[in-house]
């Protein structure tokens, strides 16, 4: 967790100080006398940051912490975020903020605006992992007294990673004045963890008691060492029972997590396959360019982001209908231009669409370059939903599961409740009869193919949030898509949903045990055996296509 930047309370203090300074100046006093002695020390340390090595920077952070200048938190937060820079011309250190014309500079000593500069005129003051860890710990010390309980809680969690004398005494002081129950609990856990190292067995026993019910990693590891090294039998037993309790919950949540992973992999498979379920399943066209239709959808998301660079969320949301249209139109084009001449000749369709898929890939390489393109993830889809200490769900996966179900439901609606759906089903069941009843089958074919292609484009937008957007995006999903459709039963959307989800779950159940490569192979073998027993998949379709016409 990166510590969020809050307007430091020091800012108002700084303004006050500025005023005092101005007043003092006006009254004719010497400038040097007006500056607080802390200011000079602070300024000296900050100036040194410009040229310091990483070891030196750590020492400076310590010195800054020691002095506790009002601007220290702001400075450290900027340092952590990579917003500290030195001006190339004079080596002066500034906090930078993005502005319309280059970079706005803020003085690190009195937090006053210090003009703007071009980013090329500044040299960023870098951090490394060690330093960032130190900075997070240092900022947590400040945040312990923040007005927001959430910030305080995050600060305590950060401090629990590494307890030493300073942090323990800070936690103890805070516990005295803390009023939020959640933060109090976190503080108690922290202090109990520290108490586990106490020489007094009674204190240790009490500490283990306090930790009961906690599931966190820090607690678990501490109990584990206690169970091994503890001389007192009572404390050891208490630790052991605590460990058992955690293990139990970990196993339970581990199972839930695997299930979720399976469903989320399954929903990606469903998204990739559902368009194919229409073109291959309902129309019986083997479309090898299906993957490339997804790729086009993903590139639509990329182009959308180029058009709306400042609005990541909006760009992704708009990309969904846009990708449906673009891929859908390409699909109609493919049907009108190629596929319709090859109905009833599956091998030729296969070869023609395979060739088309290569052409589309190379076209994308020529237009967008062979390099992968990045599609940024909107804020609401990053990170994870921390349900408890041992269980969390990642937002992007959760949204994609929901999205897959939504697409499925919409498609069901279209096929079952609209006149287009009725015609599609009619043509797929008996083309001659449908034509006899006045359905323009050629038009329906084009629309159906377009619908399948459009859905593939929508799947591409979802994939752009999970993986690379590149010319090869489609290739990696085409085999999986056919697999799901064949397994689920050709011509049946429910089959695709259940088939995709179960293949996902089976894959994820196998993966920890057999490894990712082997899991894929086992699933394929299972599928081949299954098709031997039930050649028409899970839910065989009863219609013209299924009669082997």
């Amino acid at each position, binding site marked *: *967790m990166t510590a969020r930047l809050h307007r430091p309370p020091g800012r108002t203090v700084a303004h006050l100080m500025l005023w005092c300074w101005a007043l003092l100046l006006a009254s004719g006093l010497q400038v040097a006398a007006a500056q607080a002695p802390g200011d000079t020390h602070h300024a000296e340390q900050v100036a040194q940051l410009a040229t310091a090595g*990483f070891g030196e920077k750590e020492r400076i952070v310590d010195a800054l912490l020691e002095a506790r200048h009002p601007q220290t938190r702001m400075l450290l937060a900027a340092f952590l975020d*990579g917003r500290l820079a030195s001006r190339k011309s004079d080596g002066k250190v500034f906090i930078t903020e993005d502005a319309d014309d280059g970079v706005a500079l803020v003085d690190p000593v009195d937090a006053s605006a210090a003009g703007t500069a071009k980013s090329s005129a500044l040299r960023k003051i*870098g951090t*490394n*992992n*060690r330093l*960032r*860890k130190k900075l*997070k710990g240092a900022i947590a010390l400040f945040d312990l007294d923040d007005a927001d309980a959430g910030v305080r809680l995050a600060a305590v969690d950060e401090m629990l990673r590494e307890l030493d004398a300073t942090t323990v005494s800070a936690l103890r002081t805070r516990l005295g004045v803390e009023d939020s129950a959640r933060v109090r609990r976190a503080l108690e856990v922290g202090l109990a963890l520290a108490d586990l190292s106490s020489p007094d067995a009674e204190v240790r026993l009490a500490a283990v008691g306090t930790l009961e019910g906690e599931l966190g*990693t820090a607690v*678990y*590891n*501490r109990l*584990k*060492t206690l169970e091994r090294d503890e001389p007192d039998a009572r404390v050891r037993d208490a630790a052991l029972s605590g460990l058992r309790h955690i293990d139990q919950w970990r196993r339970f949540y581990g199972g839930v*997590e*695997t299930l979720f*992973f399976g469903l*989320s*992999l399954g929903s*990606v498979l469903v998204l990739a396959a559902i368009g194919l379920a229409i073109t291959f399943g309902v129309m019986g066209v083997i479309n090898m360019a299906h993957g490339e239709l997804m790729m086009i959808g993903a590139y639509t998301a990329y182009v959308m982001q180029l058009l709306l660079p400042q609005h990541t969320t909006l760009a992704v949301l708009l990309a969904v209908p846009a990708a449906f249209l673009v891929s859908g139109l390409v699909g109609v084009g493919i049907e009108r231009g190629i596929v319709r001449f090859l109905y009833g000749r599956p091998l030729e369709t296969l070869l023609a669409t395979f060739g088309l898929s*290569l052409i589309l890939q*190379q076209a994308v*390489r020529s237009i967008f370059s*062979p*390099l*992968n*393109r*990045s*599609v*940024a*993830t909107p804020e609401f889809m*990053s*990170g*994870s939903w*921390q349900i408890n200490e041992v269980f*969390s769900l*990642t*937002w*992007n*996966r959760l949204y994609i599961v929901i999205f897959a179900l939504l697409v499925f439901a919409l498609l069901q609606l279209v096929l079952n409740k609209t006149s287009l759906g009725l015609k599609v089903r009619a043509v797929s069941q008996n083309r001659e009869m449908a034509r006899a009843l006045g359905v323009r089958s050629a038009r329906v074919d084009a629309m159906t193919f377009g619908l399948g292609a459009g859905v593939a484009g929508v799947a591409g937008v979802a994939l752009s949030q*999970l*993986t*690379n957007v*590149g010319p*090869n995006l489609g290739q*990696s999903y085409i085999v999986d898509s056919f697999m799901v459709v064949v397994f689920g039963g050709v011509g049946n959307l429910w089959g695709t949903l259940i088939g995709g989800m179960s293949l996902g779950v089976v894959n*994820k159940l196998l*993966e*920890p045990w057999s*490894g*990712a*490569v082997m899991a*894929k192979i086992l699933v394929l073998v299972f599928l081949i055996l299954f098709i031997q027993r039930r050649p028409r998949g899970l839910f065989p379709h009863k219609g013209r296509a299924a009669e082997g016409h």
Partner: protein
Amino acid sequence: MAIVKLRPHLAGLLTGVALGAASFAVQAADTIKVGVLHSLSGTMAISETTLKDTVLMMVDEQNKKGGLLGKKLEAVVVDPASNWPLFAEKARELLAKDKVDVVFGCWTSVSRKSVLPVFEELNGLLFYPVQYEGEESSKNVFYTGAAPNQQAIPAVDYLMNDLEVERWVLAGTDYVYPRTTNKILEAYLKAKGVAADDIMINYTPFGHSDWQSIVSDIKKFGSAGKKTAVVSTINGDANVPFYKELANQQISAEDIPVVAFSVGEEELAGLDTGPLVGHLAAWNYFMSIDTPANEAAIANWHAFIKNDERTFNDPMEATVIGFNLWAKAVEKAKTTEVDKVSDAIIGLEVPNLTGGTAKMLANHHLTKPVFIGEIRDDGQLDVVWQTEGEVPGDAWSDFLDGSKDIEADWVTLKCGNYNTKTKKCSGQNY
């Protein structure tokens, strides 16, 4: 697969070298032919196209300096289309039909293995510019990328000594380079006293995109109270979803750093770098290293490719070094004959772009500096650690049974795999 020939285009390029009529007078027999064997289409095009351009830039520069031995250089570009058997066919075409004097090419180990018999049969000369798994030294190949002891081993040393890592995840894509590298690393870690329980090895298919379970396993593995790091030999495309998943499961670089051997500036240019900040990469070159030679090389590259946004990376530097060494060897040997150039090149030195010199050793590998960089949000890397001076490349790993007794020496032993125990050259050419 489409096979694109770019020669007409190149001829145009050569005439543009501003030497006027002279270049028209030059006939095929009077030019030195430089073969370029990099994929320009298919999956590897993403990485290899840049190396093709790098060779063209070097040829162009050499011609501006007046060529070599009074002759102009002429690049012959073929496209093996990321198709391994096609690499062998194209290599044969370059050597037998086009009669090139030297070839710069290949990226993946499997493509190198596929052209190796061709180069040995027709006595060609190949400069291979990519970091690889070692365990090879051919008479006809010069390896200008890193051997495992010039990338993987120093990276592990850094993690062990500077970051005090005690638990190790070796994650890789399932093919020859990660498998061999991880075998070497596992042996090395065990030799350093790491328990088998503290090493987790994981392989995934090419282009793997569902990292949920694996990242969750890494998280569990890393929460046992010991500092944990991931050593990643994950290849190209699979990296983006991997780092995204790490970020989403809130594993930060401070908790579990990932050090990658296949993620460089070029790969980073195509990603949203947010989730990657602070993770590490080990290379022998970084674009961000501030030296006059590096600055000049980047400026040249930008001028040549006519795009200031393009990155410069490690295999490109290896290509530049390889080309300079070859040119120097040709001048020293006063001929482009393969055997004479091969003899002349051993012991030659050219400057690295990042300082120090690259020296061609008797085992056909180079001396190289090793850098560890932390990924920045702008896709560049900050050096956080580097070796003192250059590390000589070791063709045969000292940490693998069956390979530690083998030595490659093309000067005194005249053998690429001499067994010091049995005192025999195995007879194989590689």
